[in-house]
């Protein structure tokens, strides 16, 4: 069966037919026959065959290329279904009369005409993900394109390293666009939105394009009715069994050597059986007119690599065809594709293909109610697989054996995938980073300024402020396509009481006690950089900034800190509260403000904190945390459904004797660790942060709840001051949000366990709260979720419950861990104090 390696030989017949060179080291030879840049056919020769003598070789070649030659030279005879023969009353319309071309030289009329220079219409988009070597090879071939594309855009999809950025940075004429959300469709959509050309051509990073690729793409779009052009994908190498199986057993990506036009006829003819859109081509070599995107929308982000698996390209073609567009397969649009080398990779790929295919069929069905898609899914594919299973048992077809299981699992998984994601939006109207809502602040007292809107936002969230004091949120829809929201439109929506005279600023104005700001970070240099940039704009006379780097993996954070010339301290013991404690000890001022690296501070933050501490009885201040952005669905869910991190626009004072035990327990209603400040003296009275808690320990959080609780339990006054404003970047990904839910449940359980031990509230109240309030809330929302009545997706809710259930175990683990760190502490974790 599969014999490797296979030698691939390109033969240009314009130079005459050379003898087939004999290479015994290769198990087989594949000959690809060309007439200059026109691919004509592929021939396979096994090496166990004796070397072909001239006659056999010529017979093989002529037989192989004759169909393609006929297709190019006599398209009216071979492409049309017209009858070539007449009857007496009705002579044929298509005459056979002209002589059959007798020389291959005539094929030159089918070549793509040369046009040098640079294309004015085609933008080239290459989506990549952590494959800099492949990408370098691809870009190498892109640089040899004649004509060049209008622009080359590299979309870096959810990169783990900066290798791609660095690779592209050195290149002229290549634009780099990061797309943090994983998924090929998203990356492609980002590319579409960034592209300027009328035609967006796509290729992949594991591909080598042929020099006239752009010319061929442009040529394919000469007919104005054509919306999509796809092309021939040839194997670049066949060195491993996996590559050969892919190319042989599954036909690879190649769709033959004939130009095909797929339009209405094709679509309606095959609709009842599920339109075989995958026949149109492959995403590794395709181009789409921008107007087609405007008509049928962007790539479906539920499909494609990184999501369901694949079929994002064919699903788009399906929409193009269903809306009456035309797709053109032109074999002159050639790329060479490097198939997966490992068989494991191939198995995974097959699984993903079938998963994507099944999901795409369901999506196509749900969109157009074309029953053929369902027929294919529930009848054709299963019966095909059943046949293969039987055949595999009878004939032991090897390559199928290890892939068939993956295929069947993939099909089933595709159905489940669809039902999980069917409510998700197919794509965001803009593509890039799918912003949901634009967040901005609006100064009520200042003269009218229009609010600029980026592309594609659906909603505007405005934090209305009066001389820096937050008044409240204004939410308004954005009319599609409007670049700015005029100030008058905003003003019209302001509640009357906000525009009235401001309340007099309190009599503490002007108090500016010195503050030490402690920001704790761990391996997020990019976020830290943004924080530090925002901290530069703080307007406060007397403060210091300490970056505490918690158990860093490298010294990226140190480098960032060095650029901003701030104090940098490394805390080797892992745990956010270790870092905070370190900050307390490093701080020189009487007030210590804590924040995280994923926030950006408002310019008046410290001023407001200072005002908060103007009352000498206030020992701790916590402030408003507003969303920095609401670009993604998880961010939107977190802010709108879970209430985010903000605790309202009203300043409040908390004091033990005014609180019920319940309020004393649920300190999460009071404030957030991302924005809190304490007088240093309070730590001398109640002790430092509990190092067994919060991020970086098995507890996974809860350090802020604990410290608020202890401050209040000790009888001190805590103030919520909304004027102390920071902007927090919520979790962008659903997976991150799910982790957050899990951690919240878990850490809250650990926190409750600690309260049980320390008895700072009565155990009766604690038990009552735990079971009656918290437990009921956790379970109740899952019931709602199961009934489909909860606005949060069920996986999030389950993650919360699961976290809570894991709490007791986490409690034991985290305190044992803490003891270990403390015991080992001095020896193992000492680090130079300041670097």
């Amino acid at each position, binding site marked *: 069966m599969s014999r490797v390696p296979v030698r691939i030989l390109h033969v240009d*017949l314009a130079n*005459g*037919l050379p003898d087939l060179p004999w290479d015994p080291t290769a198990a087989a030879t594949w000959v690809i026959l060309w007439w200059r840049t026109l691919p004509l056919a592929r021939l396979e020769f*096994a090496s166990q*065959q*004796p070397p072909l*003598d*001239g*006659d*056999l070789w*010529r*017979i093989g*070649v*002529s*037989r192989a*290329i*004759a*169909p393609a*030659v*006929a297709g190019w030279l*006599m398209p009216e*005879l*071979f492409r049309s*279904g*017209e*009858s*070539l*023969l*007449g*009857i*007496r009353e009705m*002579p*044929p319309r298509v*005459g*056979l*009369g002209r*002589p*059959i*071309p*007798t*020389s*291959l030289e005539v094929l030159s009329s089918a070549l793509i005409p040369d046009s040098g220079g640079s294309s004015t219409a085609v933008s080239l988009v290459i989506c990549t993900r952590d494959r800099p070597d492949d990408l370098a090879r691809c870009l190498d071939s892109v640089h040899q394109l004649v004509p060049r594309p209008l622009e080359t855009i590299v979309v870096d999809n959810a990169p783990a390293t900066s290798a791609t950025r660095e690779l592209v940075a050195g290149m002229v004429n290549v634009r780099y666009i990061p797309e943090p959300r994983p998924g090929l469709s998203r990356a492609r959509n980002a590319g579409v939105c960034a592209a300027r050309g009328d035609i967006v051509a796509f290729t992949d990073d594991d591909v080598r394009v042929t020099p006239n690729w752009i010319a061929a793409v442009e040529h394919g779009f000469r007919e104005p009715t054509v919306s999509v052009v796809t092309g021939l994908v040839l194997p670049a190498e066949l060195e491993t069994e996996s590559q050969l199986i892919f190319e042989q057993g599954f036909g690879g990506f190649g769709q033959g050597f004939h130009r095909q036009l797929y339009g209405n006829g094709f679509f309606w003819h095959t609709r009842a059986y599920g339109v075989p859109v995958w026949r149109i081509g492959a995403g590794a070599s395709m181009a789409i007119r921008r107007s087609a995107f405007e008509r049928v929308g962007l790539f479906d982000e539920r499909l494609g690599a990184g999501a369901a698996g694949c079929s994002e390209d064919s699903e788009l073609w399906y929409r193009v065809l269903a809306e009456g567009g035309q797709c053109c397969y032109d074999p002159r649009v050639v790329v060479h594709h490097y198939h997966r080398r490992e068989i494991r990779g191939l198995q995974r790929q097959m699984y993903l293909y079938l998963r994507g295919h099944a999901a795409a069929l369901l999506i196509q069905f749900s969109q157009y109610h074309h029953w053929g898609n369902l027929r294919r899914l529930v009848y054709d594919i299963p019966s095909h697989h059943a046949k293969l299973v039987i055949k595999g048992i009878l004939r032991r077809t090897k390559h199928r054996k290890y892939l068939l299981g993956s295929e069947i699992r993939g099909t089933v998984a595709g159905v489940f995938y669809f039902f999980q994601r069917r409510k998700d939006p197919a794509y965001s109207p803009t593509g890039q980073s799918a912003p949901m809502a634009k967040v901005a602040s609006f100064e009520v007292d200042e003269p009218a300024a229009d609010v600029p809107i980026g592309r594609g936002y659906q909603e505007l969230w405005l934090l209305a402020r009066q001389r820096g004091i937050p008044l409240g949120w204004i939410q308004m829809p954005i009319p599609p396509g409007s670049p700015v929201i005029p100030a008058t439109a905003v003003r019209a929506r302001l509640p009357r009481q906000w525009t009235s005279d401001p309340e007099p600023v309190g009599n503490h104005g002007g108090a500016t006690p010195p503050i030490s700001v402690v920001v704790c970070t761990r391996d997020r240099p990019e976020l830290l950089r943004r924080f530090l940039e925002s901290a530069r704009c703080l307007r406060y006379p007397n403060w210091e900034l300490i970056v505490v780097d918690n158990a860093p993996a490298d010294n990226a954070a140190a480098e960032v800190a060095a650029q901003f010339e701030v104090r940098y301290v490394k805390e080797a013991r892992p745990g956010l509260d270790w870092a905070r404690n370190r900050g307390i000890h490093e701080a020189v001022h009487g007030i210590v403000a804590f924040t995280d690296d994923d926030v950006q501070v408002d310019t008046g933050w410290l001023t407001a904190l200072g005002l908060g501490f103007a009352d000498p009885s206030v020992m701790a201040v916590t402030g408003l945390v507003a969303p920095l952005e609401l670009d993604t669905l998880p961010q939107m869910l977190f802010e709108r459904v879970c209430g985010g991190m903000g605790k309202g626009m009203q300043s409040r004072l908390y004091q033990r004797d005014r609180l019920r035990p319940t309020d004393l327990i649920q300190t999460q209603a009071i404030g957030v660790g991302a924005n809190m400040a304490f007088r240093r003296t309070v730590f001398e009275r109640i002790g430092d942060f509990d190092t067994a808690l919060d991020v970086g320990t098995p507890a996974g959080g809860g350090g802020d709840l604990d410290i608020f609780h202890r401050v209040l339990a000790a009888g001190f006054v805590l103030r919520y001051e909304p004027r102390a404003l920071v902007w927090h970047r919520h979790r962008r990904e659903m997976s991150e949000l799910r982790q957050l839910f899990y951690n919240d449940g878990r850490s809250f359980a650990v926190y409750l366990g600690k309260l049980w031990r320390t008895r700072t509230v009565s155990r009766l109240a604690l038990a009552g709260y735990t079971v009656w309030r918290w437990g009921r809330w956790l379970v109740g929302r899952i019931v709602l979720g199961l009934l489909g009545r909860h606005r949060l997706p069920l996986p999030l809710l389950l993650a919360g419950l699961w976290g809570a259930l894991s709490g007791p175990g986490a409690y034991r683990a985290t305190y044992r861990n803490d003891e270990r760190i403390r015991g080992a502490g001095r020896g193992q974790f000492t680090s130079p104090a300041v670097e």
Partner: protein
Amino acid sequence: MPMTRYALMDLELQDPTPVLEVPLGYQGLAVVFRRGGRVVGFELEALLPGGSPEIRSRASQAARRGLLTALQEDIRRELAPQSARPANPSVTVVICTHNQTERLARCLASLERMEQPAGAGRPEILVVDNAPPNDATECLVRLSAGVRYVQELRQGLDFARNRAIAEATGEILAFLDDDVVADRFWYQALLEAINQAPGAGAVTGSLLPFELETTAQVLFERRGGFRRGFEYRCYAGQDLPGNPLYPCGAGIFGTGGNMAFRRSVLQELGGFDEALDTGRPLAGGGDLDMFYRVIRAGHPLVYDPSVVGFHQHRRTRAQLRRQYWTWGTGFMAYARKSYLADPPMRSRWRRMVIWWFKDQVRSLLHSVIGRNPTPPGMVLAELAGGVIGIAGEYERSLRRVQRIREAVS
């Protein structure tokens, strides 16, 4: 039972507007597609009662296929190295005949009308009269100019063929049966095929129906007749990828009614096996045996579909049944002989025989349920012939042939 007749017509593809006319009184249509006179395709189509609108599109498809093979042929020629025009070899056309004067006259007449390729002489024509019961054949040949006449008294086609090998003067021996009419371009195509493949030991051509006037003839042609497709093929070496029975299934190489060999190859192989093709009761297999031995001796064999003859099939069903019987016995006798004579190929031969019987049983079943146009009786005849053939017929034939040799000498 009403007689089934198919109209046989020529269609010139270079005609600007080829028109397909379906004459009345025919149940079907057989179209020979020509391009510039040369045959490039053939299509057999039953007509539905009351005319069939399908016929034009089906015929168009066939015309497309014909055009494609023509184009393929052009490309093959263009890709061939432009060497100096090789000297045309001398050719002897051998017609072995036995008491079939009328047919022989028709065959000779077709050779008379043959297009002469430029730069090639007329072929030598040699009629081998096999065990003539009277002098009718001799008289006929004596009247035709430029035809040599040889008598072979020992009855048996392969005796006659071997006699031709001894008598002929040409480098190439082209055998035509007396019930075959050569196409106008037969000689030209044959010379081209030989010149293009100078190393080939044998060149075979295709046989199309001469007429389809009786049910038996239509049945025979619908089963595939003597057609082997319209693609030029070259067989060389001892293996053919995708065909595990190669070269035992020698039917793919061609038919004995229209074949040509290099005389040196025939001499090297010791001529035809006289125990095969003896007429009743073993009237076949000699051509297959020769193709097989040519390939086994390492000589390439070329099948060139443009070397066309037209064969008059058996007119009555009884004759046709008899022919199928002959095929069965002939093939199996040839199998038996090769199995004994060629030990390295024995495993292939065993598989070949198993396959053959399986295939016969399958076509019998298909015939019974109506998926095979051949009546079950005829399939059974071939199957029974096969059984007889494998059950010692070759050995019996060897003894019979020995007696003939002794009797005549």
